């Protein structure tokens, strides 16, 4: 078998027979080529989509959720319906204690984030209105902040000492500072109070609510400056990696309802946004896509390989006489069989490799066209090498199996009958 495989005559043989039916061979090869091409393109695209979603969520803990206060919709415990709810700072410790799924809870407060009046921020003659957030350092565990070199985010000492420091956005920097100026260490004015800039955060365009002009100051500084007391606008939270985020969300609301004396069935009192749940849905969607591309790809490859089996059957029929001559000259049935099977596998492989190259080319083109797009969830479309090897193995396997049919036909004709055929 191996001798046959590495012999020049075998290949001369295969090329001879391929050249005799050039058009038919090309059309057949396109069948398999198309199959593997579809497979590679589809699975690469779905991987790209996967990566794209991954990128959209990379700065945010994938199992994070957010809770804010609204108004009650049911009367309870002597309170009227429509009572305006307010989250308090001590809810943080309470939630950590009552909801075991939670890993981090970050209280947040802001001016300008949800309606409200944005703060007036200025430096020298330049000024603008920007959203101000009062935050704890723990926030970066939930929504990572990408700080430019030389700067930092708010730390515990800032909180403890109620320091007047701030982290500004890229755009804030552009609008308040000259290009040559170093923002870190400089002072800016926020609602007539001076704050020292300790860092500049890079805009990453994900997560949804934040943008490149946000200004972060320590939570304690915020509440002193704006006299907000224990008020918290919303909690950003992250559940443990293996926790059930849907259950966590339910537990959080239940706990808050108990603490804030809200009717257990009141669905309106607290609003929430469960990023983890959405992320899981997206994940499910892309694994569905993966499965679909696998099924479609394999089915198309199968159809192509059957086409090759078909052409070989015809080719064997046309070559009956030639195969008869060979057997009269001493070719054993297994040698004849090996020749046909090698031909089948060879055609399949050539078509497969061409399909892989073509598919990769298309994926590379798509990648090139979408590389700068931040809005499209599509990044780095790749096909794992084991999938490609798997597809090749599948094709060789199928090529051998399908080759067996014409090969068996070729040896089932007696040489004497083959020679008699004109």
């Amino acid at each position, binding site marked *: 078998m191996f001798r046959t495989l590495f012999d020049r005559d075998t290949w*001369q043989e295969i090329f001879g027979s391929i050249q005799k039916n050039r058009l038919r061979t090309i059309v057949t090869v396109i069948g398999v080529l198309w199959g593997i091409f579809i497979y590679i393109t589809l699975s690469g695209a779905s991987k790209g989509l996967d990566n794209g979603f991954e990128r959209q969520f990379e700065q945010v803990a994938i199992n994070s959720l957010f809770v804010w206060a609204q108004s009650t919709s049911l009367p309870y415990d002597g309170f009227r319906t429509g009572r305006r709810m307010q989250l308090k700072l001590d809810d943080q410790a309470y939630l950590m204690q009552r909801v075991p799924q939670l890993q981090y809870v970050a209280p947040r407060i802001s001016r300008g984030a949800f309606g409200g009046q944005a703060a007036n921020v200025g430096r020298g003659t330049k000024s603008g209105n920007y959203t101000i957030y009062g935050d704890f350092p723990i926030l970066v565990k939930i929504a990572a902040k990408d700080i430019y070199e030389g700067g930092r985010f708010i730390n515990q000492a800032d909180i403890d000492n109620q320091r007047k420091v701030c982290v500004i956005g890229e755009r804030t920097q552009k609008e308040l500072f000259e290009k040559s100026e170093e923002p870190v260490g400089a002072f800016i004015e926020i609602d007539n109070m001076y704050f020292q800039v300790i860092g500049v955060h890079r805009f990453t365009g994900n997560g949804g609510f934040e943008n490149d002009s946000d200004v972060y100051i320590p939570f304690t500084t915020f509440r002193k400056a704006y006299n907000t007391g224990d008020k918290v606008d919303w909690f950003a939270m992250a559940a443990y990696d293996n926790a059930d985020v849907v259950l966590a969300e339910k537990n959080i609301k239940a706990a808050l309802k108990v603490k804030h004396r809200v009717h257990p069935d009141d669905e309106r009192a607290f609003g929430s946004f469960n990023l983890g749940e959405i992320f899981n849905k997206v994940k499910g969607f892309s694994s569905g896509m993966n499965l679909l591309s696998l099924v479609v790809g394999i089915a198309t490859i199968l159809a192509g390989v059957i086409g090759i089996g078909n052409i070989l059957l015809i080719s064997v029929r046309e070559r009956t006489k030639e195969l008869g001559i060979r*057997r*009269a*000259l001493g070719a054993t049935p297994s040698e004849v069989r090996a020749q046909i099977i090698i031909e089948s596998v060879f055609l399949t492989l050539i078509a497969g490799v061409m399909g892989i190259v073509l598919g990769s080319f298309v994926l590379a083109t798509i990648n090139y066209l979408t590389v700068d797009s931040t809005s499209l969830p599509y990044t780095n479309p790749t096909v794992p090498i084991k999938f490609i090897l798997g597809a090749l193995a599948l094709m060789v396997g199928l090529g051998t199996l399908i080759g067996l049919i014409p090969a068996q036909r070729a040896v089932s004709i007696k040489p004497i009958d083959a020679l008699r055929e004109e």
Partner: protein
Amino acid sequence: MIDISDLHKSYKMGQNSLHVLKGIDFKADEGEMVAIMGSSGSGKSTLLNILGMLDEADAGTYILDGKEIKDLDETKAAIYRNKFLGFVFQSFNLIAYKTALENVMLPLYYQKVSRKERQTRAQKFLEQVGLGPWATHRPNELSGGQKQRVAIARALVSKPKVLLADEPTGALDSKTSYELMDVLQTINNQGITLLIVTHEEDIANMCKRIVHLRDGIIVSDKKVTQVKASQYVE
């Protein structure tokens, strides 16, 4: 060299059975050149096919070079054919997309001879049949006589004990036929046993012995004085 006795062969044609060979006894020694003659349907081709292990007899024994040939499966038959026998067919049966040299090399390929060796040996045999300069030509670029000589070179290249020729001159004009017989006589003189099926009297007379078949039995078997084909060739 060849020893067959009481050979029977019949073909089934639907309901009827056609008894083609009805007990053939035949012996040929090494170096003989035997013409097998007979009208069509006399069973001469069937006999040759059985001798060539392309077909199997229903009954009787067949001993080739001291070895009894029986219970052949395809693989064994292929190996025997390759080792002991050379074939020349009426319709040449060359492979169209291979050059003359490659056609001659083919039996050696199945003997697992190395490529270089195959090439030298094939070239030598092509030269022996006078086609050295035509080695790289494909069959469609050769005349009928040349094709048949390529076929003879191909049959000889594996150094067979017996060369079986089925109407080798059937598709050739008489001048070319005589040239071909000259080649075959030369080969025979080198010691190779030749069995030639023909229905042409003049071709048969160029052999050393003529066997007549009629309706599946040998009706006559006599030695003849060989007519040298070379005298007809300029």
